[in-house]
C-alpha cells in the first residue's frame, strides 16, 4: 500500500535555510545539508527545497546547494523557486533535483508545463500553487510571493495545469503560510476532488494533529517547515502519531 508522505520543506536563500511568515520577515534556520541529513535520519519521505533568493547570484548559489544536498540525501528531492524556463528545470535536475516545482512561470505560460513534462516526464513536473481565499469555497492564485493576484480560480487552474502535464500539485494556502493555524482543509478537499494527481498540502501546519487533518482532508503528502526546524517535533514523532491514528506511513 502506498504510504502518506511527510515532507520537511527548506526555504533557502543564499545558501542558508530561512523561514518567514507569509513569505516575509525571514529567520535563519541553519545549513541546508545538515538539515537535509537530519530529516532523512528522522524518517522524512522526501524533501522540498524552495529557493527564495530573488537575485541571479542567489540562484547560482541555489544550484550549488542542490548539488550538495543531493550528495548527502538518499530520498527524493523536489526543488522550486525561480524556475522560469525548461532550461532552468534542466539545470536543477542536472544538479540533483528529482522533481521541479513551477509556480509563477506556469501562470504566465502554461505551455511550460507541457514542455517540461514532455521532456522530463510528468512525475517530475510539479505545479506549485499559492492559493488565497477570496470567498467561502473560492480561492485565487497569487504569484510573486503573494504580491500579485492573478484572477485565476485555483481549482480551475489545477485542472488546466494537469491537462498540460503537471504530475503533482504542491498546494500552499497563502493565508495560512507560517501562521501555525493548520492547513485550509476546505481547500485541500476541493483540490483532491478536482484532480487525480497527488496533492502535497502546505502552509500553516503547527502540530502533528494539523498534519493528520491534512491527510484526512485528502492530501497524499503533507509539507511542513517550522514545526521541524525549531525542534518541536521530529519527523519520527509525527509519523508515529499518524500511525496511531490509522494512517499508513513508512516507519
Amino acid at each position: 500500500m502506498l504510504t502518506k508522505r511527510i515532507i520537511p520543506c527548506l526555504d533557502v536563500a543564499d545558501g542558508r535555510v530561512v523561514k518567514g511568515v507569509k513569505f516575509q520577515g525571514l529567520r535563519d534556520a541553519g545549513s541546508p545539508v545538515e538539515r537535509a541529513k537530519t530529516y532523512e535520519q528522522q524518517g522524512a519521505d522526501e524533501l522540498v527545497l524552495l529557493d527564495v533568493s530573488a537575485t541571479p547570484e542567489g540562484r547560482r548559489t541555489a544550484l550549488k546547494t542542490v548539488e550538495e544536498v543531493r550528495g548527502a540525501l538518499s530520498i527524493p528531492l523536489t526543488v522550486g523557486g525561480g524556475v522560469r524556463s525548461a532550461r532552468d528545470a534542466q539545470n536543477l535536475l542536472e544538479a540533483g533535483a528529482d522533481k521541479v516545482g513551477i509556480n509563477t512561470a506556469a501562470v504566465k505560460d502554461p505551455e511550460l508545463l507541457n514542455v517540461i513534462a514532455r521532456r522530463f516526464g510528468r512525475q517530475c513536473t510539479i505545479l506549485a500553487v499559492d492559493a488565497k481565499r477570496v470567498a467561502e469555497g473560492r480561492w485565487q492564485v497569487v504569484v510573486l510571493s503573494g504580491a500579485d493576484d492573478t484572477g485565476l480560480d485555483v481549482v480551475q487552474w489545477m485542472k488546466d495545469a494537469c491537462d498540460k502535464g503537471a504530475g503533482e500539485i504542491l498546494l500552499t494556502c497563502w493565508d495560512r503560510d507560517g501562521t501555525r493555524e493548520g492547513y485550509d482543509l476546505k481547500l485541500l478537499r476541493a483540490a483532491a476532488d478536482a484532480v487525480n494527481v497527488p496533492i502535497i498540502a502546505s502552509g500553516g501546519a503547527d502540530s502533528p494533529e494539523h498534519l493528520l487533518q491534512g491527510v484526512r482532508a485528502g492530501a497524499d503528502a503533507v509539507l511542513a517547515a517550522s514545526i521541524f526546524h525549531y525542534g518541536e517535533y521530529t519527523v519520527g514523532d509525527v509519523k508515529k502519531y499518524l500511525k496511531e491514528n490509522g494512517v499508513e506511513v513508512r516507519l
Partner: protein
Amino acid sequence: MRKVLVIKTGVANLASVVAGLRRAGAREYFSDDPGEVAAATHAVLPGVGAFAAGMEMLEKNGLVEPLQKRFAQNRPTLAVCLGLQLLCAASEEDPGVEGLGIIPEKVRRFPDCLRVPQLGWNMTEPTPGCALLQAGYAYFANSYRLCEQPPGWTASRADYGGSFVAAMERGSILACQFHPELSGPWGLGLLKRWLDREDAAC
C-alpha cells in the same frame, strides 16, 4: 572499486543515480557507445522520460543489440523505472512502439480511479526465490507498470489498485520499477548486493 557504466539517455536525471552508486562504493562512467555497453562489467539503464523517447535513444545509438545480449547472458545489468518498462515488448504509453522484448509482456497504465502518477513509498514483498530483493519500502514515481511476473524471473510485488511487479531479478540482472537510489538505506542495500555480483563474462 566497481566501475559502473551508466547509459546516457539524454533526457534522464542521472544525478541521483550517480549519488546512489557512489554511496554504494562504486564509481560511475557515462556512455552511449555500443562497444562500451557490451564491454562494461556492470551497466545501468536509468529511466526517466517516456517509453518511445527511451527506445528511440537506444535505437539511434545502436544499443538495442548489445543490451539484448547482456540480458541473454545474465550479465550484471540494472534497469531502473522506465528501464524496467523498456525490457518489455510494448507499453500503453506509446502504442505501436516496440520495446527491447526481453519480457513478452505489455506495460499498462494504472487505472484512472487512482492518483496517477504513483508518487511515494510503497511496501514491496519478494516472492520465493529472490536473491537480491528483500522486503521493504521503496520509492516509486510511475504511471505505468508491469502486472504479470514473467516466466524465468523472480519478482517482488507491491500493491497500488492491485498487485504489480515492483522489481524482478534473473541471475545478475535486476530491474526495478522503483528507484533504489532514492529508497534510503534499504535501497542502498539493494544497490550494494547487485554491485557485488561478478560478471561471468570477464
